[in-house]
């Protein structure tokens, strides 16, 4: 029988990461959708970097940054007694950055797709930016929010390189399902690897199918 713990850790990591991403991506996406600041291009490029960068590059820099021997890691360890490398919290931080574009991009394009008059009409009715965002803008981009949530969740499930570099392979802490597959293959346990692989395969397929189905339905009801 396979060890279920890696699956649980994967699931927990994906949930925590998605929740954090949702909270931080909304202001980022809102800023990117509305700002005319020149810094916007730089921020956009940075947010998109994880899409093209090899995960090992990110993992390497995380390792450098969070390791107790270097600046930020040293600061954390010294003042907060926290160590981000080879720990679950480290995995969360790395995953948040690694999956950031998958949450920010759909929300940003959803917000950009709305008529700017919606926001301006709300302002003219005396409503603040925050109230406008939560009562007018976000409720009208539900499909984009759903897409962002699901893509970020699914992408975190599929993480491998970053997790391996920064999390190591500590059973019960940082050994996620994708790493467990690698482990089982290394140990020639193809049967177990197959079970893990199939579970991930089926889960991500069902998740993505659900999103496309829901968004398709939404598009149809909007047309009616």
């Amino acid at each position, binding site marked *: 029988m396979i060890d279920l713990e890696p699956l649980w850790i994967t699931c927990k990591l994906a949930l925590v990461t998605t929740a954090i991403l949702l909270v931080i991506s909304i202001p980022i996406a809102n800023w990117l959708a509305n700002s005319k600041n020149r810094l916007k291009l730089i921020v956009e490029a940075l947010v998109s970097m994880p899409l093209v960068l090899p995960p090992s590059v990110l993992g390497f820099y995380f390792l450098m940054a969070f390791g107790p021997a270097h600046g930020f890691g040293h600061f954390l360890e010294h003042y907060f007694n926290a160590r981000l490398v080879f720990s679950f919290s480290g995995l969360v931080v790395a995953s948040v950055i690694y999956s950031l574009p998958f949450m920010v991009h759909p929300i940003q394009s959803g917000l950009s797709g709305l*008529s700017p*008059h*919606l926001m*301006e*009409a*709300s*302002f*003219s*009715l*005396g*409503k*603040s930016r925050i109230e406008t965002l939560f*009562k*007018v803008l976000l*409720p*009208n981009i539900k499909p984009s929010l759903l897409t962002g949530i699901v893509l970020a969740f699914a992408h975190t499930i599929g993480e491998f390189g970053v997790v391996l570099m920064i999390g190591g392979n500590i059973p019960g802490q940082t050994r996620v399902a994708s790493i467990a597959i690698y482990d089982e293959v290394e140990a020639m346990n193809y049967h177990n690897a197959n079970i893990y692989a199939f579970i991930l395969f089926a889960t991500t397929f069902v998740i993505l199918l659900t999103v496309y189905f829901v968004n398709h339905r939404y598009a149809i009801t*909007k047309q009616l």
Partner: protein
Amino acid sequence: MISFSIHKTLQTSIGKMPLDISCEIPKGQLAAVYGASGAGKTTMLRILAGLLAPETGKINIGSEVWLDTARKINLPTQKRNIGIVFQDYALFPNMAVRRNLEYALENGHDNKVVDELLEIMELGQLSSRYPDTLSGGQKQRVALARALVRKPTLLLLDEPLSALDNDMRAKLQDHILQVHRHYELTTILVSHDISEVFKMCDKIFVLENGLITKEGTPTEIFANQQVSGKFQFTGEVLSIEKEDIVYVVSVLINNSIVKVVAVEDDIVNLKQGDRVLVFTKAFNPIIRKIEY
């Protein structure tokens, strides 16, 4: 009294164009800013609404100062008591008609005004419908009602009727006039439709390439001033047909077609689609192309 003077350099497809406007509009008037697209009408409206900042300028609404670049005052849109109706309506799709209006209420305000507006704008039966299920004219009525919930000091209408067909347009013009009088509003209508401006407005500002080139009452602006007809209407030439030695010109005035007899001299300048003034002098209707 609403008075403003604003200056802003606009980037257009043909290069930079200065927008330089000074206007005074007495309280309770319905003023129109008339001009071709690209003349700067919408930009002016956006500056009044606080959605865009001019390089220099002043906006005084009665004793309130909304903008004074010299004193570094520029109230945000939220602090200016305005109502805006956009060309694309900008109704909130996630809210039913009644919710769209209630959203405009300040916290704790009772929604008697919402009920009243739903009734005036004949929206009672539509109050639980969502914007996506409404026709253009219905959406425009909701947008107008929503803009009035806060009893604005200044109502700004940005080509509010251009997307509607003629019947609907006439009906909405009546609605706008009705609420303008009922709530004693000061209204600025931006439009490039002569008949609309002519029918509705007390005062017209003609905006050309960023500058106000003419201002006055509709008749002063659009009709030749020396005409002293007993009655006069504006309309659009539908057809010009020759019958024996005279010409019969069919003119669309509001929704009715009027046939006017004209001689060759009268129609030299006329072609289908021209805007014309139809008036009587003595007893014969005379037709003349409107120059402006």
